[in-house]
């Protein structure tokens, strides 16, 4: 569980996050949606401690991040898996070494054990057989999946994903969405997932936070998002064709 209270963050005169209160629950997929530039990535980076909030607290399972000692922070970080929007694979390492990296850093496993775990996760993201390729030799969507594999390889307790399925075809995107949801339930992970993809919202939107201009404009579930009268949300959500069709179908069914 991650509790965010009264979070503010700005850059050189531009306020990006303006007072956010929210709780990300454990064992659930917590989605953050919102327009491009609304501050979703900044929000995520504040939670990860990559940006220092101007005000407010972020507590991991009840303990404020700012009160962690260096050592505690490092212990916490071993339990965090993060997928960056651009993948952020290490381009001096091949796919296998990239995925193995957290294991090499944080575990005392033998190479053979690590390799078998690496191949296990590569299989889960449908990338068997690409282990020896360099990141520059695989497609953008494949890089994204390698990055997901790296984020989950060390069985994190907290999983952060910044647009896991942008750049993926609908079928692979669904596979990835389901993978993230399954892992979340299996391992009781606190998953925070940013998405633009309305398909994902429908699939795995167990809890949804809608961010608009740096404030939390709406929160709810994938069932509630169809019923809400909140104009900001409907405005954003129904710009997607898919959503309109689903709603129309639902209304006809009733």
């Amino acid at each position, binding site marked *: 569980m991650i509790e965010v209270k009264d979070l503010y963050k700005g850059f050189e005169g531009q306020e990006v996050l303006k007072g956010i209160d929210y709780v990300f629950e454990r064992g659930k997929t917590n989605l953050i949606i919102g327009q491009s530039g609304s501050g979703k990535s900044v929000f995520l980076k504040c939670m*990860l401690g990559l940006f220092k909030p101007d005000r407010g607290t972020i507590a991991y399972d009840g303990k404020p991040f700012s009160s962690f000692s260096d050592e505690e922070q490092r212990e916490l970080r071993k339990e965090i898996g993060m997928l*960056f929007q651009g993948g952020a694979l290490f381009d001096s390492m091949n796919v296998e070494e990239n995925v193995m990296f957290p294991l090499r850093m944080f575990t005392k496993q033998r190479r053979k054990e690590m390799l078998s775990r690496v191949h296990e996760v590569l299989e889960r993201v449908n990338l068997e057989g690409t282990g020896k390729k360099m990141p520059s030799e695989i497609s953008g969507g494949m890089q994204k999946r390698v990055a997901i594999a790296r984020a989950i390889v060390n069985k994190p307790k907290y999983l952060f994903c910044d647009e896991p399925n942008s750049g993926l075809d609908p079928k692979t995107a669904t596979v990835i969405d389901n993978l993230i949801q399954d892992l979340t339930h299996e391992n009781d992970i606190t998953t925070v997932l940013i998405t633009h993809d309305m398909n994902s919202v429908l699939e795995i939107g167990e809890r949804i936070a809608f961010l608009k201009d740096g404030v939390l404009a709406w929160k709810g579930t994938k069932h509630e998002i169809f019923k809400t009268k909140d104009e900001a949300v409907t405005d954003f959500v129904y710009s997607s064709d898919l959503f309109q069709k689903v709603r129309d179908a639902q209304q006809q069914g009733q």
Partner: protein
Amino acid sequence: MTYLHSIGEYFLMLKGVFGRMTKTSVLRNLILKEINDLIMGSMGIVAFLSFFIGAVVAIQTALNLNNPLIPKTLVAYAARQSVILEFSPTFISIIMAGKVGSYITSSIGSMRVTEQIDALEVMGINSKNYLIFPKIIAMLTYPFVIAISMFLGMSGAYTAAVLGGFVTSDQFITGLQEDFTPFHLTYAFIKTFMFAFILATVPAYHGYYMKGGALEVGEAATTSFVWTSVVLIVTNYIVTQLLLS
């Protein structure tokens, strides 16, 4: 004001570099890789430049010795002094600021813009130590490069002076040993160590703290070359003033 800020930031970076260490087994591989990339990769160009510049220094000196009162041994003496004191340590370091320096800036800089550094930090890895420390250690072998450069510079001078018929082999060897001050070598290697540290850290600073995208990586590499050269030359001046005068 911004300069002061940068200097402060540079020293804070150094503090971070020598802060919490990366896992030893990982660090060892990184160091070996850096020795390969930074040192081995530069041997060819350094050898080539050293040999020919040594040769040119010898020819220039020989051509300017028209006065019969000045002994021929001066050719080797002059070549030795210029190669050991300035050419190998300083000139080669400026070349390295272009080669190794821009490589360091652009490799760290592109990791910054593609969030690879953030990825390290999220995992709780001290990214300054992980990225910069191995480069500093690899550069500790830089004095080897300079020693080889000195040797090849003198070989070039010998080849040009003797084969060019300016002096005899004996005159060259005598000149080489004339008035030799061992402290000059000490001085040369003291500054080489300092240059090695500068060559690793100033470009690393420019890469680590860069902002922007791919275009800015190129700009950062250029700026880094300029500043590394400036710092090298100023350090050279100060060290020479302190040690030789």
